[in-house]
């Protein structure tokens, strides 16, 4: 039997998660939990025969024996409340909001490190897309400063993101430092309203100090892109990574070069259209973590 998962949040992310979890042979979907009885996500869950409830977190509190793992796809400030309730119930949670209460997980970089932690943070969509690249560069160079710019289609940015854009930039910048290995991290997010909507774009800049082996940097980036694409099929380089000559006066000191990595993320089109790669990379990464937890528990039980 698979790990029994409950999703809280019946918006875009939660509904997309539902579709991916149903496809997994290691996970079982216990319920999609919302707060709006009229939400499209809950209606879709009902039509698929999935338990759908508008009772919010209290459904989990009422049915703790039916849930092994919660995936929280609400918003940062709501997650803070959920985290406390779930800790009391002893149910682990994967947090898809930028609240960052638990250790941050980027599957391609540190999947195995925190699997037993009760609260795992999936950082942000931009963090999932760009932290692996900074980590890859850090394997080949001492990165004193890293920066990411994430551009997403306006149509794919929900009200939660819009009201908490600072949480996004803060949490992402921290991930570039804590998991990417950069001494200083900076994150920028841009919404583009073009119609038809653009695919999610991410650009990573890393400062490269004197004496860096540029080929080693480029090779490491290529390997990492393949590593992420293994669980996010639409993740790819838009152009070859390039090394540009400076000097550049970064907050981490003056460096002679920078590497620029231009990425594109096309979604799988599970719930939202393929342009919403920003949502797809979050849900695909969260499912990857949930499956790793399932394997871990199966291994422990065996």
């Amino acid at each position, binding site marked *: 039997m698979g790990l029994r998962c409950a999703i809280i949040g019946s918006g875009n992310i939660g509904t997309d998660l539902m579709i991916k979890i149903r496809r997994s042979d290691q996970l079982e979907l216990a319920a999609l939990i919302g707060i709006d009885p009229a939400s499209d996500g809950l209606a879709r869950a009902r039509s698929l025969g999935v338990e759908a409830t508008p009772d919010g977190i209290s459904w989990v509190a009422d049915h703790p024996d039916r849930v092994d793992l919660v995936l929280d796809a609400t918003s940062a400030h709501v997650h803070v409340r959920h985290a406390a309730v779930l800790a009391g119930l002893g149910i682990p949670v994967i947090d898809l909001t930028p609240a960052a209460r638990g250790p941050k997980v980027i599957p391609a970089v540190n999947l195995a490190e925190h699997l037993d932690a009760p609260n795992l943070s999936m950082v942000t969509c931009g963090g999932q897309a760009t932290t692996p690249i900074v980590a890859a560069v850090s394997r080949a160079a001492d990165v004193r400063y890293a920066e990411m710019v994430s551009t997403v289609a*306006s149509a794919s940015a929900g009200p939660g993101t819009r009201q908490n854009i600072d949480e996004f930039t803060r949490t992402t910048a921290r991930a570039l430092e804590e998991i990417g290995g950069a001494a200083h991290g900076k994150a920028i997010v841009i919404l583009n309203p073009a119609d038809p909507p653009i695919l999610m774009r991410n650009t990573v800049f890393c400062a490269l100090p004197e004496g860096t082996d540029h080929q080693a940097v480029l090779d490491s980036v290529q390997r990492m892109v393949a590593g992420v694409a293994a669980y996010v099929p639409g993740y790819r380089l838009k152009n070859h990574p390039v090394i540009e000559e400076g000097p550049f006066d970064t907050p981490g000191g003056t460096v002679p070069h920078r590497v620029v990595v231009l990425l594109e993320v096309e979604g799988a089109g599970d719930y939202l259209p393929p342009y919403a790669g920003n949502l797809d990379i979050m849900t695909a990464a969260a499912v990857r973590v949930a499956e790793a937890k399932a394997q871990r528990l199966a291994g422990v039980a065996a």
Partner: protein
Amino acid sequence: MSAADFRLTDSTLRDGSHAVRHQYTQRQVTDIVAGLDQAGVAVLEVAHGDGLGGSSFSYGFSGTNDMELISAAVAAAKTAKIACLLIPGIGTAEDLRAIADLGAAVARIATHCTEADIAEQHIGMAKELGLEAVGFLMMAHMIEPEQLLAQARKMQDYGADVVYCVDSAGAMTTPMARARIEALVAGLDIPVGIHAHENLSLSVANSLSALEAGALHVDACTAGAGAGAGNCPTEVLVAVCEKLGIETGVDVLAAASVAEETVRPALQRPQVVDRASLILGYAGVYGSFMLHSERAAARYGVSQAEILLELGRRKVVGGQEDMIIDVALELAARSGQEVSP
């Protein structure tokens, strides 16, 4: 001097910072603020060209930390208020707290013209901190007047004291500027402002047209310093206003002296409508892309004009400077294919 008919905000030390690649020194800030304060300008904006937090690989690193420049400006201003710009997604609420502590009085919260709702948090924070909050709707040529009004209303609802129609690409003809200002003036309860660029040589004309349509706030930059072909030149605007009998509160000759003796020597190149800046206005491309595209064109051996036209076709918005590298690489690859056998 009688009361001014509109409030002038001089952005030489913010939008004009693009023209010096964000390398203003503390000395230059002190001199320019002292000169413009003395000349009678009501509000002076100081920050990285892309706003607080703009210092980056993407937009260029500041030569001097923004906060040091803002402190210098606050110290040098006797009567003028100091304003700062913040683009949510680039700067954060912490930057607003910092500028409030330093004594800035006005926070200008800028978003792309269709994305006003990402400003709610920051407009609210500015008001909480006791700052005047100005909503700043960029690239306003891209949407119709009624759509712009809908976005401006959101900013009004969040607590903005003023909302600006911002022609970031210098792409508006005079009727376009007038129609947008008329829609905002008719549909809002708060004052309306105009921010014009010179890419089509219409910055002064569009500003005057906005005043006729009821705008009560106008942005300008001394010596026209700014992104692209530059901004509406402060000294020219106040001279024309005086001839038209519009009270500005600014001494024309004093402003002209600051332009000639203090600002122009700080600029690294003349502010003119050259081919690149004309294309910005013609194709509707964000003004600050100009110098970045010039560098990328040189680095990858491709045409700057081609880069800008392609950015226009892709409908990129302010902040997407990374796409300049993307386009330059693609143009280089394409031309490489053409020459190879």
